[in-house]
């Protein structure tokens, strides 16, 4: 599935118009047309949904949660015990974030999140999942061979670090809290949030010391 996207990537980006519809574009267009004619959907609602997930909800939310956990021990403790409430206190609630669990990396344990059965992902803090997260290579291999998966992300973990893989098989959504890198003592919460990548909150990256 990821390959398919890569193969067609150039095509899609250069051909976003409706005058040469590819089969999927035509299929979705037909569905939207029929549903609109029947009064079952509001095309303006679709615009709002797209705008929400394209521009408003994304990994910046999760990065704020992580940066706050790094700088505020009370918040970190709350996040450990009741992630749903702690995250909601920052204004991040809703669809695919109804039930949250934060898992904290330690020097001895690295956490990695996957959904082998579909594409469960914490939308409220990370936004929509990337293609690779939803595609068979990651979903099949994260649980059996996570070290080689991490290598493909450029992350080599030393062999003595234990890996814990969290397979999101229920409605609990996981947020990895990466370790705060050394050399960041003087940074503000906002500056720290800038360092926290989406992948570090899935577990396919760590947060590097700023250069």
């Amino acid at each position, binding site marked *: 599935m990821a390959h398919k996207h890569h193969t*067609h990537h150039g095509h899609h980006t250069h051909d976003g118009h409706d005058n040469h519809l590819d089969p999927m*574009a035509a299929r979705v267009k037909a569905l939207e047309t*029929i549903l609109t004619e029947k009064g079952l959907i509001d095309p303006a609602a679709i615009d709002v949904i797209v705008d929400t997930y394209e521009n408003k909800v994304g990994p910046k939310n999760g990065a704020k949660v992580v940066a706050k956990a790094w700088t505020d021990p009370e918040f970190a403790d709350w996040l450990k015990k009741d992630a749903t409430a702690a995250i909601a206190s920052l204004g991040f609630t809703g*669809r695919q974030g109804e039930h949250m669990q934060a898992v904290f990396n330690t020097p001895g344990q690295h956490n990695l999140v996957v959904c082998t059965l579909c594409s469960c992902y914490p939308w409220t803090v990370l936004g929509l999942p990337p293609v*690779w997260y939803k595609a068979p290579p990651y979903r099949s291999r994260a649980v059996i061979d996570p070290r080689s998966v991490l290598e493909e992300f450029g992350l080599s973990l030393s062999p003595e670090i234990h890996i814990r893989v969290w397979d999101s098989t229920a409605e609990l959504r996981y947020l990895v809290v990466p370790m705060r890198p050394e050399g960041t003592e003087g940074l503000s919460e906002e500056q720290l949030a800038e360092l926290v990548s989406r992948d570090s909150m899935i577990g396919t990256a760590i947060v590097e010391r700023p250069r």
Partner: protein
Amino acid sequence: MNGPQDLGGQMGFGPVAPERNEPYFHADWEKRALGVTLSCGAFGAWNIDESRHMRESLHPADYYASSYYEIWIKALERLLERHGFVSGVEREAGHSLGKGAEPKRVLKAADVAVVLAKGGPCDRRVAAAPKFKAGDTVRTKVFNPQGHTRLPRYARGKIGRIDAVREGYVFPDTNAHHRGEQQQWVYTVVFDGPEIWGAGSDPTLTVSIDAWESYLEGV
């Protein structure tokens, strides 16, 4: 069901190949696919478990050849047909050919923010006390249902320990088939890598799943 979705431990799909600076959407139709899917979910005619089951019921060759938004749309077409909203003939025609089923609600632009911020919590009160507590050793059951389940094949018949008692959640195995929410306690169950993957596998690996109580038995 032992369908194409149950990917944990399967082999042969190749490297992960993450895309640098990946956009949220790779084509405009993917945006509409997201919006149409969420809007139709608001009808209240089906639940998240039924839609997951519809996606995993695609023919395996079709499932593996499709991107995730393609899977969504193919499943949505079937859901709309099953529940009487849009027929195959209408899809062929590209136009409405008459009135269909009545939705419980239609999602309007003005309501999107509130609906998305509210989400669809699945926690429900369970009257009975949880059967297991953190630290207990359990075994996952072996079963191969024709219908929907959230116990992956790789984690069936395995010995693990209860890592955490979560909450009472709607039971997908019945809810997907309109046989009621039948909420149960959910537990995070952790397995040692070699218990799942056998001798010679990474001894520093542990894998956990979130399991409904009826997936588990005491050891």
